């Protein structure tokens, strides 16, 4: 029986492969957000596996029982309209499953869009992560330093990444710390992450952005706060300052290795937030626009309350 053996083969393959899942980085989380997501993945996959097996089971049953070869020559299949009861069950069970998953999904949405659970007491570290073809620039405004293509972060402290782009849409992704979010040229997105354990993690741009996309990666090193402080001090002592001229050079399309600077580009090239945002939301050239438009500006700023230091 070809179908049976095919199904058996499939089940065995799935089972063997699932046991090897711990090595998959998304399922090997090193931070609270990634953990929330890995849990969602595992739970939804298990529920779905149950559905797949149920469908396979019913299909196999029908095929084995109602094959023409199993039946009398003169058997005439009956005419059967639907049945309200059967069809209600076929609607009811999926509705229940979807309801459970929706509940989980909504709950997780609010978790990943907020400061990670257990990290609320400490002030988060704010890092501006901006992309250009095909690099990542990391500015630490509080520390007053900037790196290219590598990221040092403290463990046990919430991280707030402010994402934007100097060109195409990119997506900032450190799979073991949490899922990705877009970096765009006309607005700043906030991604809340945290690292539980020290270690080196892979980070990359996940959204296709042209020729250099495959190599558009960065290294992430998580370390205890005191080591992080030492590193900041060391950078301040050894690195050269970033200038507007130098930064423009860095923006040229191409690949760069890892670079370190003191100061940040935010001073001369502010992020597209608040008054610097896109969509004409109060860019300086539009200051004498109509009242109506100014009203919109304020609405927009209200949403961006985190950046209050920029316009108050």
């Amino acid at each position, binding site marked *: 029986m070809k179908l049976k053996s095919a199904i058996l083969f499939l089940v065995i393959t799935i089972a063997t492969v699932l046991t090897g899942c711990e090595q998959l980085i998304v399922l090997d989380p090193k931070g609270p957000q990634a953990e929330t997501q890995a849990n969602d993945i595992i739970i939804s996959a298990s529920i779905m596996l149950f559905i797949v097996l149920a469908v396979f089971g019913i299909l196999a049953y029908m095929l084995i029982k109602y094959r023409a070869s199993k039946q009398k020559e003169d058997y005439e299949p009956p005419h059967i309209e639907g049945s309200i009861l059967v069809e209600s069950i076929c609607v009811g069970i999926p509705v229940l499953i979807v309801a459970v998953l929706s509940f989980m999904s909504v709950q997780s949405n609010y978790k990943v869009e907020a400061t990670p659970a257990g990290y609320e007491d400490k002030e988060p570290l704010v890092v501006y992560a901006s992309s250009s073809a095909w690099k990542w620039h990391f500015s630490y405004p509080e520390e007053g330093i900037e790196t290219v293509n590598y990221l040092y972060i403290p463990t046990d402290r919430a991280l707030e990444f402010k994402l934007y782009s100097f060109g195409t849409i990119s997506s900032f992704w450190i799979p073991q710390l949490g*899922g990705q979010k877009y970096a765009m040229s006309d607005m700043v997105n906030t991604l809340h992450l945290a690292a539980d354990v020290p270690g080196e993690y892979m980070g990359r741009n996940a959204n296709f952005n042209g020729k250099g996309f495959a190599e558009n990666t960065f290294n992430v090193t998580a370390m205890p706060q005191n080591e992080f402080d030492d590193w900041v001090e060391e950078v301040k002592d050894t690195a050269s300052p970033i200038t507007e001229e130098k930064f423009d050079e860095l923006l040229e399309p191409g690949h760069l290795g890892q670079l370190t600077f003191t100061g940040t580009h935010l001073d001369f090239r502010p992020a597209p937030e608040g008054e610097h945002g896109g969509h004409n939301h109060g860019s300086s050239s539009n200051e004498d626009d109509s009242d109506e438009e100014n009203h919109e500006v304020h609405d927009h700023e209200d949403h961006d309350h985190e950046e209050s230091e920029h316009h108050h």
Partner: protein
Amino acid sequence: MEFFERFAIPHPSPAIYASMVAIGLTVIAIIAGLTYFKKWGYLWREWLTTVDHKRIGIMYLISALLMLFRGGADAIMMRAQLSMPENKLLDAQHYNEIFTTHGVVMIMFMAMPFIMALMNFVVPLQIGARDVAFPRLNALSFWLFFMGAMLFNISFVIGGSPDAGWTSYFPLAGTEFSESVGTNYYMIALQIAGIGTLATGINFMTTILKMRAPGMTLMKMPMFTWSAFITNIIIVFAFPVLTVALAMGTLDRLFASNFFTTNNGGMDMLWANLFWVWGHPEVYILVLPAFGIYSEIISTFARRNLYGYKSMVASMVIISLLSFLVWVHHFFTMGQGAFVNSIFSITTMAIAVPTGVKIFNWLFTLWKGKIVITTPMLYSLLFIPLFTIGGVTGVMLGMSAADYQYHNTMFLVAHFHLVIIPGVVFAMLAGLTYYWPKMFGFMLNERLGKLSAWIISISTLVAFIPMFFSGLDGQARRMYTYSEQAGFTMWNMISFVGAAGLAIGFALIVYNIYYSIRYAPRDIGSDPWDARSLEWATHSPVPEYNFAIVPNVDSTEAFWDAKKKGHKLFKGELEKIHMPNNSPIPFIMSSIFFVWGFSFVFAMWIPLIIATIGIFGCMAYQSFEKDHGRYISVEEIKETEEKLGGPTV
């Protein structure tokens, strides 16, 4: 000199030069062959100017098969490139062009014409009509699609292919970051083909609403016709969005407007939103007719009526509504916040409910049946488990917080291939095999057919299941290479083996067609599958007028009841039949559209203006032409019917 430089390929390779030579030789061979065998007149009279829905369907079918191999070649190259780390088979630019054209060709120029082929061929027959409501518009739809496809396909030998992905996200696709004419081809070719599709939508809605045989109420329509009806409603609502988005993209690229640019107030995500407001319903435009095909085939070979007819219809109506309410799930990661994501997460997962109803109804159609496993049935039965895997992973992707991890990865690629291949491609192959005898009067070989169905199914699993794992291991989609340390090698190697298997499976289908043309018996009658709906109540191949007498319907399975319960389908006497005349206008107008598109791509304004005048000229000519069609006399009908073997029921 600068003028001519634009026509050159930005980064030529031996493969591209070889394709140029191959294209040149093929064109010469076709022209020489047609001339030698004196077939120009035949081609012009019987095909290029035809308005017959069956012939238009067959032309769609041939185009779709050709494009399947064009897109398949792209796929094989991609999988080969990724089969090993640091592979040098393709460079980044070449790879980017290939995955872009693979996506566009497979969705727009393979899957779309394939469903158009089956809708064109089957729907008028299923509802007992003589043709579609607007036969000439139907021909125009086909030729616009065909010219759009040709325009898109010449891009890789003239000027360079688009390279910003099949989704063509701006600002990457804008002139700031994509200077070559590649994306112009994308914008204009899809625009031309899209106008054709929109016209088809209007045409088939009208046909199904106004031209059903007497007695066939809406709730007595065969399920494929229902699916085609709902699909065409979605087309009419969704395609205008694509039209507008493409027009805005064209303005950005050729007239320096700033809808999607990074400065001057352009909004980068506006394109993505517009694209997916069309793009998600598009998924259902493809998959609903496929569901219709499965409904016909499963009920035919379970030898039973379709279980839950009403809930089948209801589920399609609900799917069509929900399809417009989920587009944001293509970019949960845009930064719209937890509330918006929650809403779209729930609507997305909700689609699983009506889809699940359909799966269960098919399973219950098998219940108490007498299942005969033919090639079309085998595809339909293999579709159920494979599509379920694809479908449930879709629910997983609908969990928006988790989607932050799936987004842009191979996990997503695995999901949508496991939905589209079993969902659409299997249905088209099943439909092709099922309707082949009705189209050509002989059957495809069953042994070869079943063998290819098995090879294609197993290869689909081998090719795409590994991607779930490489995705969860951090492999982003659209990467042209990866390092050995990344750990993706094994998964990608397995995928490549699966892709090779798919190539063998599809090659076997071509061999089957060749084999069956040569050896298949021709005396198979008009109803070789012992089927249930009206298309089997006429001769194979179908005469030009479809039915000598318009059938009378009083159940959902008119032909089956005529066979089993002795309902009389054809009442009354033969009368002369009114038929539309052939017209060269659709072909000529679409050819001018090709010139228009090509001029637009290269911003050659004078030819563009001349072509525009030509297009309006064709429309004016058409508007003032007095053509009242023609009549087929009773004698002629009698003669044809006699030749085809007399009455069928």
